[in-house]
């Protein structure tokens, strides 16, 4: 490995940190939008945002999911039903880029004594 390449790798790691932050934050929070607050209340009462953020579904599939969740107790006012489906379809539609998952912390291999 050349000195330049090593320095480049170090710099790349440094520059990548904000990107990693953006990815991690976006996994655990629903994105901004007209119905973000209501979506957060309705959905994350029972489960966290990740289970939504990782989906890539058509509007028809989101409609089916929202209706199932309402049946299972999600509190969605009738006037919020269609905007919620639009919001989920727009942010987590089939054309969105692949989801990148977080990891749990790994045990330190050689902990200092």
């Amino acid at each position, binding site marked *: 490995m050349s000195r330049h390449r090593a320095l480049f790798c*170090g710099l790349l790691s440094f520059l990548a*940190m904000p990107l990693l*932050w953006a990815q991690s934050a976006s996994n655990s929070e629903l994105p901004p939008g007209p119905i973000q607050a209501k979506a957060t209340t309705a959905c994350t009462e029972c489960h966290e945002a990740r289970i939504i953020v990782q989906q890539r579904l058509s509007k028809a599939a989101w409609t089916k999911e929202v209706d199932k969740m309402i049946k299972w107790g999600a509190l969605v006012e009738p006037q919020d039903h269609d905007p919620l489906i639009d919001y989920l379809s727009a942010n987590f539609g089939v054309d969105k880029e692949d989801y990148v998952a977080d990891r749990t912390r790994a045990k330190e291999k050689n902990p200092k004594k």
Partner: protein
Amino acid sequence: MISRRDFLISSSAAALAVAAAPPLLAWAADSSLAIPGKEGMIVRSYRFFDLETPVEYFNTWLTPAEHFFVRNHMHEPSAIDPATWKVTIGGEVEKPYELSLAELSKLESHSVVNTLECAGNGRAFQRPKVPGVQWQKGGVSTGRFAGPRLRDLLDRAGVKPTGKHVMFRGLDEVPGKVPPFVRSIPIDKALNDDTLIATHLNGAPLPKHNGFPARALTPGWIGAASCKWLTEIKVLDKEFEGNFMSPGYRMPNQPVKPGEATKPEDTHPATALNVKSAISNPADGSSVHSHVQIQGVAWAGEADVTKVEISVDGGSSWLPAQLGKDKARFAWRMFSLQWKAPNPGDYVIMSRATDSQGRTQPTAPVWNPSGYLNNAIDQVRIHVQA
């Protein structure tokens, strides 16, 4: 191989980055999620836990507990007191009774090495995509489970001739109006020698995330058949009717076109696992030297893996892999193949398993509305360096 000098240069570069960015590194230290007892796992969901085993941990026959995948449908029990925990055995039996953990532990224990796989493992590769936890390759692990036979518990109760199915209920905490996670298995499978009420995994008490203090172990079947945090065993005169039996965990009776819906009457419960393989080395997207140790694991539910083949040319030709010496009826086999790349460049490495029932992995996922039991040939893309 990285020389000592290269290592020192790399370390210096890393040190430079560290010195320049203390606030960001402070964040970086917290970027991974701490889940005691579950190390380096892919987080599909944090609340409730759905944790996928990264394929690099498929490098041992038995998956260590800290890398054993976790699939929860709802919240884990907030508190379990081993001193007061009990499991009831009832329904279509002559003498219903209950057992404490101490009483359960006194029963004759049996050990079964089982590859446990979530029915939805590989769902993320279905096209069109389907809703659900987007498992990729690691909703599967292998462990040595131990505990009394379910049959011994049922024999003590005396199953009536009307007993056709055995239902399991766990202590999962149900959010909202979500139906409870309750399922049943047919009486024949329940009375099988290898179906256990497991209290141990790899020689230690079950971790909480994997069902402490006791779980059903229905070997060779989808993970959903092995209910965790068991609290009730009930013999029924028919299959349990509930969301996680129907419409959940059902397969179409006939192949369906991708994107097509199925009628409930044209489906059956998902039970035994498919024949399947996963490559653990080399890593997908990695850049490697010309001598490559290709390795992975292959499993087949209630059947035996009879061969694993490797392709290094995108599936045009296949080479036999060597199967590992460790084997058990319901457990995966490790496989390996030493391969020398003829030239530098990009390669697609594929693995394809065949089993004792004559089943071979399909080239592409067989689509179904819930994305269950995807067992398409595995593949990784690598770059071989000059």
